[in-house]
């Protein structure tokens, strides 16, 4: 039997905000410090991945399964992918999806990300998306955290309640 949490609250609005901008959901729940750490951590990972692997680390068409994980970052991932698809790819009816990465002698000038930089960049961005999903779920089924002294007080009260019938 899963443990029940009587204090648990369903917060769909905060969860939606957390998906739109990482950390915004926790800010809406009145947890600004947590929100800042989530914002810095998730976007730091995502843009760290783009920094290492280049914009090619986020590619909905050529690296679809990586992008499934990266999409957890929210609209930011879709905007970066959109910029990648429309500004740094060339139209090619023979290519899957109608676009492809340009060759070295084609415009726009673009250095394709290969090997370790590509793998590490995609990994950073995907981990960012998966961590943001944890944050979204934390906002959705939100359990207000008590301060340690409140927690101890609650424990004492619970113990007294259990002992009193005997």
């Amino acid at each position, binding site marked *: 039997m899963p443990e029940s949490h009587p204090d648990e609250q369903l917060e769909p609005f905060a969860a939606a905000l957390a998906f739109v901008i990482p950390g915004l959901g*926790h800010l809406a729940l009145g947890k600004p*410090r*947590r929100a800042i*750490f*989530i914002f*810095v*951590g*998730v976007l*730091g*990972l995502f*843009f*760290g991945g*783009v*920094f*290492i*692997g*280049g*914009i*090619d*680390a986020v590619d909905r068409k050529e690296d679809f399964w990586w992008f499934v994980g990266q999409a957890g970052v929210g609209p930011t991932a879709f905007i970066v992918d959109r910029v990648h698809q429309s500004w*740094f790819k060339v139209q090619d009816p023979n290519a899957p999806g109608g676009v492809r990465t340009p060759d*070295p002698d084609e415009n726009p*000038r*673009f*250095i394709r*990300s*290969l090997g*370790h*930089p*590509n793998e*590490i*960049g995609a*990994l*950073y961005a995907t*981990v960012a998306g998966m*961590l*943001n999903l*944890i*944050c979204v779920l*934390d906002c959705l089924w939100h359990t207000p*955290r*008590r*301060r*340690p002294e409140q*927690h101890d007080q609650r424990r004492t009260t619970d113990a007294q309640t259990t002992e009193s019938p005997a």
Partner: protein
Amino acid sequence: MISALLLPSFGSLAALPPWRPFIDPIALPGGTWWLTLIPLALLISVVYKAVRVSDMKRYVPNVLLMTAQIIVAMALLAVGAHVLIIWIVPALGG
């Protein structure tokens, strides 16, 4: 002229555009790619502990501890994989 003499077989490299951050990939020096594990572990810990820690006074020690745990675990996995692939598998093959 000089670049053509110095780079006879890499003439096209001289024509490459300058590196553009966040568009072009970085050139990781050979053998240093694994150092990217450290910021990865740190940022994972920053986000995960922001959700999990009940008392934010213990946040920073928790983040540092989790970062160290990830790095040590990855190093142990690397040692284990090295032992398995370099020593055990060839030994089993005779």
